Structure formats: C-alpha cells, structure tokens
C-alpha cells in the first residue's frame, strides 16, 4: 500500500509541474477562492439554491446526518417500489452519514457502482482511502470475492475482473429507479452541479434512473463557472496525477421534455453535519478541502498504517483535523496526535490548508479540555525550567530515568550521555 501511495504522490508532482507554470501560485490562488467561499458562505449558498431551483432542481437542507438519511429515505420511498434498485456513485458524504445501512434496512437493493466501492460493498468492508478505496486489497483478494459472488470464472487479471463487474453492474443501471451521487463542486452563479470521475459509473447512475439524488457538503461551493478550470486541474492532478478526470459532469437540471434520456427529477440534499460549527471555529480552513487525497499519499503516518487505522470515514491528515473538528476533541482528539507534523500534507494540499498548525491547536484544545494525557508532567517540567540550577539537576537525573522501560525503550535503545558536558567545558575555557 505504501508503494501505491508513493506512486500516486510522484504522479501528482509530475503532472502538476507540467500543467502549471507555478504550482504554488495556483495553490494559493485556489486557497484564496475557497477562503472567499467560507467567508461568504451564507449569501453564496442562497445564490446557489436560487439558481438550482430556477433550473428545476429541488433543494433540501439537512443539519445532521440523521436528517439527511431521513430525507433521502423519504425520497427513495416516494419515487420507487419496495425492493427497488438504487445505484450509487462514489461519495464520501454518503459514507459520512452512513447512508447505505438505512436504505438497505428499508429493503432497497443498494448497489455501489464505482469499481473500488463495489468491491468494498461485496466484502462488507470500508474504504481505506478517500480516492482509492481498495488501495489496501490485492488482485487475489478481489478475484476471490468475485468468485464468491459468482460474477464470472475465476481470474486474477484486473481487466477481466473489471469486465465482470461491468457486466453485472450494467443490469443494475438499467433496473435502477434511483441514482445517488455526491457533488464535487456547486457553482453559485449558475446553480450547476459538477461531478468528476474516471469510470463513467457516476454518469450512468445519474442518467438512467428517473430520480437523481445528490448529496453535497455545504462547503463545496465555487463562486463562478470561471473558477472551475483551476479546480478541475488541481483536483485531477492532486488526486491521481491526471491532467483532467475522464468525465466532468456539468449538471444543469433534470431533463427537458424533448430530451430522450436523463432523470425527470433532481433532488439536491445540502449537508451541514457539523460544518457550520467548524466554520465558526478555529479550524475553519479545513473546509477548503476538495477531497483530492493528496495529503494521504504524502503522509508518512498514513503510508505506514492505512486508512482503517484512523477509525473514521475521513482518514489521513485531513481526517486528523476534520474528525475532531466536526465531532469534538473529546471524541476524536487522539487523532491529532497521529502525526509527526512533518508538513508534507500542507506542501501538497491544492488549497494550502495549514494542517500541521491545526493539529497542534487541536492537541492544545484536547489538553486544556483534559481529554488527553501525554503521560509527561509538563507543568512540573515547566517549573523546573524556570530555574537553571534545578533544571541542570533534573538533566543529570534524566539519563538515569531513561534506564526505566518506556514506550521509547521498547523500540529504540535509549540515548546516552556521550563525551563532555558542554557547560563545564564552556566555563573552563580561558
């Protein structure tokens, strides 16, 4: 998995370097646009909603995950028969609100259509990466899963496996009454919904069924259509090292009477689920995130553990901030410690989010709230530090203290005093 992350990280550097004359300038310009959105979110959302409505899209608002599930379930019930097929495009927002179990319990045949998400679904697993959901699985594992589900004769060749999935899912696309997707960007000035993808399953999911339900985090707004090219390039380049994703849907509204295909209805569910709270707090910049996954690919901690180790739908550096920011440090503050603060994430982030600084702030918030403990009595250390003689005495004892077993000594040998003592040497000079 480490190799896969490294490969994508390299592809990102190569492509962005060729697409932009000055990658940093592009990132910071994108950051300023996203910051503008956050600073003017309410009026932009109003503008966006008005335009969506004018285009024939029905807009719903959900403050919590539960509300969002309720709304979507209701829409599904109203627009299909019991047991109907629902096809889904890849969407982190739908994972965030844990949508699938609700729909499955209500008797719907929910089908993930993105190849990686499809594998995750048939395995009863969870995705381990924002962009590459089965980066943790081998072809053999996928082959075994497909054989188990009787999708075709056993094969470990990715192309064969992909074609087996394609055949299976094509039937589902044709049967489906409802298509559910996420949204990458919502353009305020035109009410356009933008969805990017490489496979084509999102296009199919949002074209063949009669009803399209789109779930969108309220922060996913862009002010103008002219902002799109920059973000499309940054997203594709940062996520997969591509110049552009294969498909960029620019959805305007449901189909007009003369159109032969397309959904009759589009329902847009705007999701808050803690975003407003984050917006009004000290970690608001994390809402600039465009879900490219570049931070995950560059993070030494992520590369050496995996998305599942974070225990949250959003993993990696972005998750380490987003999870506690949305759910509180009491619940998720420990994630902020899962970082060496090396700064690679901030360096690769297409919208220049200052993740390390936010992680430090989260650590402080958790400490002040008493919800975390580093195991070292810093207040005592701080009092010692004010008096250099006490400090020196403590330092002499330190090498002795390290002889005791500790998390340090379990994996490393302890540091030892080597050579001369500096102070004595300095004092002893002529």
């Amino acid at each position, binding site marked *: 998995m480490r190799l896969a992350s490294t490969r994508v990280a390299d592809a990102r550097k190569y492509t962005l370097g060729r697409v932009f004359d000055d990658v940093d300038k592009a990132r910071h310009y994108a950051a300023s646009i996203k910051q503008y959105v956050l600073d003017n979110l309410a009026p932009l959302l109003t503008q966006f909603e008005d335009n969506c409505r004018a285009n024939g899209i029905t807009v719903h608002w959900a403050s919590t995950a539960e509300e969002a599930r309720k709304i979507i379930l209701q829409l599904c019930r109203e627009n299909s028969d019991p047991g109907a097929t629902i096809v889904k495009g890849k969407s982190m927002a739908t994972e965030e609100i844990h949508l699938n179990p609700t729909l499955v319990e209500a008797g719907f045949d929910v089908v993930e259509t993105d190849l990686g998400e499809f594998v995750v679904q048939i395995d009863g697993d969870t995705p381990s990466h924002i962009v590459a959901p089965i980066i943790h699985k081998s072809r053999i594992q996928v082959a075994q899963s497909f054989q188990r589900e009787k999708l075709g004769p056993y094969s470990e060749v990715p192309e064969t496996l992909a074609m087996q999935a394609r055949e299976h899912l094509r039937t589902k696309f044709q049967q489906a009454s409802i298509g559910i997707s996420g949204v990458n960007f919502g353009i305020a000035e035109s009410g356009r919904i933008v969805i990017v993808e490489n496979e084509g399953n999102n296009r199919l999911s949002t074209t063949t069924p009669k009803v399209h339900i789109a779930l969108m985090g309220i922060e996913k707004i862009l002010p103008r259509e002219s902002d799109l090219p920059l973000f499309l390039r940054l997203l594709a380049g940062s996520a997969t090292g591509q110049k552009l994703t294969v498909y960029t849907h620019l959805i305007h509204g449901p189909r007009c009477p003369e159109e032969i295909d397309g959904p009759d209805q589009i329902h847009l569910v705007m999701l808050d689920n803690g975003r407003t709270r984050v917006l009004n707090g000290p970690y608001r910049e994390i809402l600039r995130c465009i879900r490219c996954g570049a931070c995950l690919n560059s993070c030494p901690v992520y590369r050496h553990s995996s998305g599942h180790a974070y225990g949250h739908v959003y993993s990696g550096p972005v998750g380490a901030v987003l999870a506690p920011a949305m759910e509180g440090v009491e619940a998720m503050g420990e994630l902020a410690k899962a970082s060496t603060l090396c700064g690679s994430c901030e360096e690769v982030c297409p919208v220049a989010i200052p993740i390390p600084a936010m992680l430090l702030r989260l650590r402080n918030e958790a400490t*002040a709230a008493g919800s975390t403990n580093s195991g070292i009595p810093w207040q005592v250390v701080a009092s010692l*530090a004010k008096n250099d003689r006490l400090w020196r005495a403590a330092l002499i004892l330190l090498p002795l203290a390290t002889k005791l077993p500790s998390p*340090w000594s379990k994996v490393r040998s302890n540091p030892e005093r080597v050579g001369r003592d500096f102070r004595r040497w300095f004092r002893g000079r002529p």
Partner: protein
Amino acid sequence: MLTCLCDAFFGEVGIATVKVLEHAGCKVEFDERQTCCGQPPFNSGDWESARKMAAHAIEVLDGEHPIVTPSGSCAAMFREGYHMVGGLEMKTKVYELCEFLHQVVKVKEWPTMPSPRRVGFHRSCHGRMLGTGDTQERILSLVGNLTVVLIGDSDQCCGFGGAFSISHSATSRHIGLSKIDQLVKSGISEVVSGDMGCLMHLDGLAKKEGIPLKFTHIAEVLASAL
C-alpha cells in the same frame, strides 16, 4: 542556545557548534540561565507549560545579539511556535546553525577533512519548514574531502515527531526503519542531520536492530575539519 537535548546528552554537539562559530569569526556567548525553548510541551499540546518555559527563554536570551542554535526545531519554535502560542514577543532572531553561517556570516569556504569521508544526508522536517531550502547541503559542500550523498527521499520524515515517537511508537519505528533501510541500501555508513531529535530516534532504532549506522550532527562534521 544549547538546546535541552544537547544539555542532557550531547554536549559534544554544543562544543562543536561553538568551535564552528568561532572559526567563522564570531564571538560566542552562552548564558548559563538558559533551559529549554518550550517545544516539547508545545508539541504535546500543553501550551500553558510551553508559555512558561518560553517566557523564561525570552527573558534569558532576548537581547542585542542574534541567537544561534544547532537545531532546526528549536529555531522553528522561537520563530513560529511562539507566534502560535501567543503573548510571546521575541525581538532577536533565532537562527539554525547552517542558516546563520550561510545567510549572516556568508561563509564561502571551509577547511578540509583530515581524511576522505562519505556521509548520507537527512533533512529534518523543521529544517524544511524554516524555508531555508538546501542551506545545510550548501554548507556541507564547502567542506573539503567530504562527499555528501543525497538519498532519494532525504526530504521524507524520519518518524520522530517529538511526542509522536512515544504516543505512536510502533508507527514511529516503522517510518524510521523504512528510512534506515534506504540509507543502508545506498551503501552509507554514516548519516548527517541538523536535528538531534531525528538523530537520536534513528540512532536508537538502528542500535536496537543491530544496524551499524553512525549518526552525526552537522556541527560535529564541520568541527572535525577544523
């Protein structure tokens, strides 16, 4: 600024730093009252304790002369950390050693090693964040008879991360061993870096695994040519 790590364990690095600065033509003062910049509690999240330690450091060190320290992470604490914690005003600038030699003293040459030496280089993350670019490599390149090998990933984190090395010691070890693996594969037997945190962590891992790699601080390398 000596740094608490050098104060506790690595006096030789402090000594080397003074010798290097004096060779570069500086008069070096050391205020005995200094203790710690406050980075460890800051990193852990106890900003109250960090503020107390920082206040003391400012009281002792702030003055008319620039401050030099053989640590990118200490310098970063003074320059960025204090700003984040708030309420801490430091007028004097704190420089990491090579940064100072390059930007202020503008060192253009350095003596030659007594015998040829080949070392690998690891750039600490704080060193990167100070925005000093390849300053450390430049200074090292001035030393005669010294070959500095940049391993492909010399910019990648070593896995120390301060509190992280203890709170997530298994992952910290994993990351560090991966780095050591690369170093060993490049045929290097000695590694140079500008931060004792990184060196202490990598050295500790290597010793535990029985890998014969030597870890040296930049100041010591520079001093050994004098």
